[in-house]
């Protein structure tokens, strides 16, 4: 079968990093449970975005049949199949709910009318049940889609493509609903008083963007070797770049309108969330974040040549990919009194590196389990044709 030399290298780095990171996190857990919980949630979220985003992209691809997706189908599937593993890594969060979610505290419930009002939704039992529902939805979708397409490799049946579409159409609907409410449960309820109805949409766009940045980097490396060599062409890289560009704009747009509406309304019930992000060094952090996550990628992805040269594209995408951790931090950390000032806790690094190492190692393993090029009936010609031609 195909050679996976670069994946081997990735694995040899990822595994030790993962093990060390996880061990350090475990040590952190024994030292300071609260700090561990916040760091773990941030590290986990960053990598979970890739798994969740991949599943979303996979369904978008099946529904729209773009060529950009054909070459990424297998990486998407491999990432989406890490769903059970990622959900398992969420268990420490479940054990840390008291550290993370104020609405689990008896004395808060007793004195807070607003939280009392929300109790039918914000209660641990509901939280667990919903977590189970999301887990089932995403896991079933990820495996149904990837198993089906792997089976299609064997028989090359066009009918499979139709089935993939039939699953993806309602699939993306319930996927989005689950992601929306998951974002409310896991992140919005960190501030039980705060609410914003665009939150779920921002969450999904963040995941999609992070995934596409990752895939742009990955594709550059895959394109160096068989079987992707010659299949991922300049046009595909241009498409990845355009997706990154479009999602960067979309992400900025959604965040900006949320900010603008809350800023203009100027009601304390909403503004306090931004106020926390405007003091204790967080205002500078916000500025750096908007530069790194909007201005820099916007101007870099604007130019055609940056998108058509896979090496340039991959370098840009890698930088922005790493920088996007800033958003996760911005979204979660300022909520907690002990992180009201910008401070990078050593456990942040331990968690994101530990989970990341593990994720990449599992991903590289998963990627080997199926042929890198799917036997998708829509693109048989394409997979052969362009290789022979250019």
């Amino acid at each position, binding site marked *: 079968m195909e050679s996976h030399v670069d994946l081997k290298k990735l694995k040899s780095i990822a595994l030790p990093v993962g093990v060390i990171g996880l061990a350090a996190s475990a040590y952190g857990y024994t030292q300071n449970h609260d700090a561990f919980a916040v760091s773990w949630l941030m590290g986990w979220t960053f990598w979970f975005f890739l798994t969740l985003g991949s599943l979303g992209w996979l369904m978008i691809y099946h529904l729209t049949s773009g060529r950009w997706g054909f070459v990424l189908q297998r990486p998407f599937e491999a990432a989406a199949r890490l769903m059970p593993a990622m959900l398992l890594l969420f268990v420490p969060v479940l054990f840390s709910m008291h550290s993370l979610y104020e609405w689990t505290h008896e004395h808060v419930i007793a004195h807070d009318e607003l939280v009392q009002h929300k109790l039918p939704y914000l209660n641990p039992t509901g939280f667990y049940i919903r977590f189970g529902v999301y887990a089932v939805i995403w896991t079933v979708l990820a495996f149904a889609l990837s198993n089906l397409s792997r089976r299609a490799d064997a028989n090359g049946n066009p009918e499979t*493509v139709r089935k993939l579409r039939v699953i993806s159409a309602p699939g993306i609907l319930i996927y989005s609903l689950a992601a929306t409410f998951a974002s409310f449960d896991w992140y919005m309820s960190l501030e039980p008083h705060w609410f914003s109805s665009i939150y779920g949409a921002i969450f999904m766009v963040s995941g999609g963007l992070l995934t596409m940045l990752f895939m742009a980097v990955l594709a550059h490396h895959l394109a160096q070797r068989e079987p992707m060599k010659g299949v991922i062409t300049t046009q595909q890289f241009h498409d990845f770049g355009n997706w990154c560009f479009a999602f960067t704009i979309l992400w900025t747009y959604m965040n900006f309108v949320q900010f603008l509406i809350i800023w203009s309304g100027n009601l304390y019930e909403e503004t306090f969330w931004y106020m926390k992000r405007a003091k204790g060094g967080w205002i500078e952090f916000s500025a750096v974040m908007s530069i790194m996550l909007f201005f820099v990628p916007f101007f870099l992805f604007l130019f055609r040549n940056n998108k058509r040269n896979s090496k340039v594209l991959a370098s840009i995408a890698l930088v922005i990919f790493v920088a996007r951790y800033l958003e996760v931090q911005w979204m979660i950390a300022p909520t907690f009194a002990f992180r009201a000032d910008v401070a990078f806790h050593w456990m942040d690094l331990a968690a994101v590196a530990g989970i990341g190492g593990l994720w990449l190692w599992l991903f590289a393993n998963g990627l080997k389990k199926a042929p890198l090029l799917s036997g998708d009936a829509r693109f048989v010609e394409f997979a052969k044709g362009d290789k022979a031609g250019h």
Partner: protein
Amino acid sequence: MAPNSPPDQKQGFVEIEPVLDTHHTMETVTDKISAIPLSNTLPRSILGVGFAALLLLGSLMGAIFFLVVEGTGIWGINQPVGWGFDIINFVWWIGIGHAGTLISAILLLLRQEWRTSINRFAETMTIFAVMCAGLYPLLHTGRPWLAYWLFPYPNVMEMWPQFRSPLVWDVFAVSTYATVSLLFWLTGLVPDFATLRDRAKGKIAKVGYGIAAMGWRGSARHWQRYEIAYLLLAGLSTPLVVSVHSIVGLDFAVSVIPGWHVTIFPPYFVAGAIFSGFAMVLTLAIPVRAIFGLKDMITLNHLDNISKVMLATGLMVFYGYGMEVFFAWYSANEYEGFMKFNRMFGPYWWSYWALILCNGIIPQILWFKKVRTSPIILFFLSIIINIGMWLERFVIIVTSLHRDFLPSSWGMYAPTKFDIAMYLGTIGLFLFLMVLAIKFLPIISQFEVRELLHKKQHKNGH
């Protein structure tokens, strides 16, 4: 060839019909499309629509006349519902005006082949819908002849627009949108005007189309710049479309009125606009393709694709409704909660449930391929969606305003006969302009259809 589209038909499962009948030649497609503007007659049905539109146009003139003479007091607006039909219809028309640029721009960027035969149609519709939309805020000022005060210009009062107001953003957004859509449309028309110039028989037609064509002669140098400009315009129009309806959404959302101050408004307004815009494309395209025998250019494939976009955007709109309901409760804001309850069970309960029915429930039949490929069902469905989207604006505006914080200032809203005359009148204006466009312009982009045909016939010659 379009690298982003699947090689259709080959595998026999993807497409229902090709997007273009490949038995055509460049000459036959050009003949077919240019026959409509170059012939001296119009089908009776179109003439009938034109005549009916002319009558409605009369009602518009009357409504405007009385408005200018009497002032906005003749409308149904008053405290507490200070925005009524004027803004409902403004948003409705602007929403309809979104499909054009969207089809043209986004689908061009996504290299979707099915864009080609409907883009001109949709762009034309956009221009006219935006004109109808613009009338409302213009007339709502009460003194339309002073509308230039809305723009920043040096004046002896040294007064400038209040840039913190979303209504001023709207002035910029809508006028930019109108200008850019017009430029995009005219740019697309120039090569087609050249075709008509070269084919027209009469002297007047020749000179008229000749002036419009500006001397286009299909030079390779010109085409090169033309294609760059066209693609860049598409790239610019896409965020523009999104911004315009977002700003319309912000007109409401930056206030603190319960039911308006919702952060999801901008994207959900955009989805709604696309939803209604595509519905209007169907409402117009289905009869036109039947009357002029354009079924080989606007194929079932087009209808299927439009339906899919409508299904997707309709679900996004429905998601928006869902978020509104959830947050009315979750926000624990009693005004928000009351507003939602009042919307559902207050005096205007019928409008809310009719909206859910028209926009949320009935469009779910689009899940079935049978529906997506049945022009008759789609035609009626598109009208239902147009009604539903109108109701959406009615619900957002009237039910949010008529019972707000102070029960002492509660009231009801009903349009007057002038409101209704004006609304029907703008529909008349829109249809009348569409009939004129069908008569004088190539309603399908000729050079793009030729280009698509060439692509399809030379698939392997690449």
